[in-house]
């Protein structure tokens, strides 16, 4: 090539921030900061709960049921005389792990279905999406009840139930993203190289859809914590004697006349967790919007 025709273009390399720097830079967004702080708080509680708590989780410490808050029991005791404060702190462990686990599972299922359905189109898409519609047509709680009733209440089954109920909505989101992305010219270029469908789906399309999927997943983890608590409230969640926030609220409800403060801490815990996830998701999508 004639170099005199036009000099080779060269530009000073722009320093690209690494992942950690980018994550750290997020602290400037107040919404992200607040949401992340709440979540980090609960994660720390979950990790160190056994060494913080004053009593054993199933220790009937004072022998007194439904005690009002006191120095020994800052948030009172429950129907078996167990320390509520202790049980909420220990209960954080499952609430930090289970929603994240079930939504991760849902994201894997939903994303795969959505990718396939959106990229293939035609009757494949039509059939898959109608099945998803059918699943989504059930009220969520009803769906949980059906699944739990069918497979029984256990930690694993709660995770499966939430994942199955969440996946269709995720598959819809992903399908919508794919419908837009698959018409981009870089996908046409990949097809012209004869790339296998799996490469196109997971290497060309998915990386461009990952941001909205992640934000959506965060919101859904918030909802999932809520759902798992709701299942616990109905007595279909993680079976006793595990400390379950939803179950604790449910039990405390019966004792409202004796100790009105009993449901306070577990309810606050559930709310703060859901709010934390929502704030983080809102903040992240805000950051992504402005970064564009």
């Amino acid at each position, binding site marked *: 090539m004639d170099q005199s025709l036009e000099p080779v273009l060269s530009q000073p390399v722009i320093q690209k921030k690494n992942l950690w720097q980018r994550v750290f830079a997020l602290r400037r967004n107040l919404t992200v900061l607040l949401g992340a702080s709440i979540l980090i708080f609960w994660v720390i509680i979950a990790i160190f709960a056994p060494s913080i708590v004053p009593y054993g989780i199933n220790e009937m410490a004072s022998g007194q049921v439904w005690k009002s808050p006191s120095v020994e029991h800052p948030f009172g005791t429950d129907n078996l005389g167990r320390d509520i404060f202790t049980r909420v702190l220990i209960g954080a462990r499952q609430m930090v792990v289970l929603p994240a686990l079930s939504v991760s599972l849902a994201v894997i299922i939903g994303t795969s279905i959505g990718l396939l359905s959106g990229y293939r189109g035609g009757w494949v898409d039509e059939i898959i999406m109608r099945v998803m519609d059918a699943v989504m047509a059930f009220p969520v709680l009803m769906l949980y009840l059906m699944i739990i009733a069918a497979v029984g209440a256990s930690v694993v089954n709660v995770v499966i139930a939430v994942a199955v109920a969440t996946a269709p909505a995720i598959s819809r989101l992903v399908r919508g993203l794919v419908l837009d992305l698959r018409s981009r010219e870089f996908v*046409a270029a990949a097809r012209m190289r004869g790339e296998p469908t799996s490469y196109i789906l997971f290497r060309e399309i998915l990386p461009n859809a990952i941001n909205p999927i992640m934000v959506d997943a965060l919101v859904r983890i918030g909802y999932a914590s809520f759902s798992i608590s709701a299942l616990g409230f109905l007595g279909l969640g993680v079976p006793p004697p595990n400390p379950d926030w939803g179950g604790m609220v449910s039990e405390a409800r019966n004792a409202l006349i004796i100790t009105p403060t009993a449901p306070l801490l577990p309810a606050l815990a559930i709310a703060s967790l859901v709010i934390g996830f929502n704030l983080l998701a809102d903040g992240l999508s805000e950051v992504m919007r402005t970064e564009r």
Partner: protein
Amino acid sequence: MTPVLDIQNLNVNYHSSRGIARAVRDLSLTIEGGETYGLVGESGCGKSTVALSIMRYLPRQAQDSGGIRFQGRDLMQAPAEELRHLRGNRIAIVYQDPQSSLNPVLTIERQLSEVIAAHEEHSASESRRRILDMLERVRMPDPQYILGRYPHQLSGGMQQRIVIAMALLLRPDLVIMDEPTTGLDVTIEAGVLDILDDLRREFKMAILYISHNLGVIARICDRVGIMYAGELIEQAPVNDIFAHPSHPYTLGLLRCVPRQGLRYTNEALYSIPGRVPPLTALPQGCAFAPRCVLAESACTAAHPRLESTAQDHSARCIHWETVVEQPERVTFTRPLSSQTDQNSEKNLLNVRGLKVYFMQALDVLGIRKRPNIKVVDGVDFDLPAQRTLGVVGESGCGKSTIAKVLAGLTPVTSGKIEFSGSDFAKPIESRSSDSLQQLQMVFQNPDSSLNPRHTISQTLSRPLRRFKIVPQDQENETIIGLLRSVNLDESYLDRYPSQLSGGEKQRVAIARAFAGNPELVVCDEPISSLDVSVQAAVLNLLHELQHQRKVALVFIAHDLNVVRYISDEVAVIYLGRICEIGPTDRIFSPPSHPYTEALMSAIPVADPNAQINPIRLSGNVPSPANPPTGCHFHTRCPRKIGAICETHEPPAQEAGDNHKIFCHIPLDELRVLQTDVMVKM
């Protein structure tokens, strides 16, 4: 007399997370009544920001200072009430996209009468009379009928005429036009420009005309200001700018546009190296210095002032006296490819009777079957190895569909595509790996043709691996070689597309297409979304690569001069059919198909003294779902000879040298008719 618009030392800064972008710097200009002032520059030069600042429509993160006076009134200090009174009434604006300027749920009459009602009090009949009068002035056929229509029922050209009518309805003193014809086809653009040219003479208003197209500016403006990186770098009466450009950037812009008649066999296109600097980090001294051939240390030391170079002519360059002396011709160093070295007339690509119909969806009940849309309707062409076939036509003529069909991205309805002996009329999934390698494509939109999540080296390594071009250990070298062949260097390897400009992205896309050593590269409007100064460079590059790597090109574009420059053969397409096909030189000299003739005369020429060829097409491209009978072109043909055009498909007339014209008019007659016009040009 006070000028209609007087801008003094306007500065506009945008505040963003990346810093302060200085979109307009120290801009001063005045426009007298009855004068049309053209503001020219590439994208991101601050042209539109000037328009928004005048209208006081700047977004919140923008901050401006300086003075903007309209008929002596200071617009910057004007209260909202006064601005409301001025806008639409005394100052009007026409934007590029008519579709977003019109409200889709209101009739044309309603939208136009609202403009009158907002500023003046008239009876309904009086306002209707004025609207009809204005619609006639913008040459709207059957204004009465148009009044009751909704915007989506009108074509783009008609919509833009409505927007212009709306702007002129109250006879404003100043009209700002921000690229009003950029989104339109050349044939439609020519018509709109005719109207604007007449109206500006008739109404004696001041116009600020913003455009990147020097041809359009030459056509319509009295004075011109050239903007670069937010600054006015040259200002002069229109004739002076074209005759004595005094800034290297102006000169570059003028020379970048392929002139009529220029061919790759004669010379390479002039191009401006580099790119517009980011407005957040402008260089010291002259902003153009990094791209300027005349640059020396004095240029980067101090910021040049706008110096007066002649009467009414000023330029922001310390070398203004020597600018015009720059050598104009750029030649390739390789031996010019002669037209005759293809003695092995073995065709690489044979296309016969190609038809692509799109099925329309059945209506809700599935009772009435709608006709198929005949996007490509019986197209034949051949392409010898290493040659270039240019395909031109207005939008909606099926050009891009032909590209997609060759690439296998759109299914063929019927017809034969034979490519170096194998059948290519099948979808991409059933082509062999060899077939895939032989035919690659460069897409129109650089933003979507590269995966935003892949680095440049990932993007380029993929075809190398798929087609096993080089062993793994030589991959990196080959990628760097590819980058160099498109005039980029290895600092690009680890960048993502978002860190590249449009022109750089398109270079990478070209490198990707050539990476697998294909025999044919299909280019679908590869330069139409790029800035003028970049277009020439990319075109040169494409051509150099083609000759180095011995590749054939199918080059699809709507710009006749570009197609003429790069092609050995040209096919002119109208409504899915070829009107004329043959060697480039033959196509562009009489006899030509009347459609080709009209396309040629519609191109705005970057020379204010050019005689305007009077051929104008009326109306729009008809819908391919219901094409006209006989010759598809008869509804718009300025040379229609009679009923035969409506009833019979035109025969292929051989004009020698494989030049075919599909027209009922005998060739000799066409030649006589067209030579007459040519002489006048």
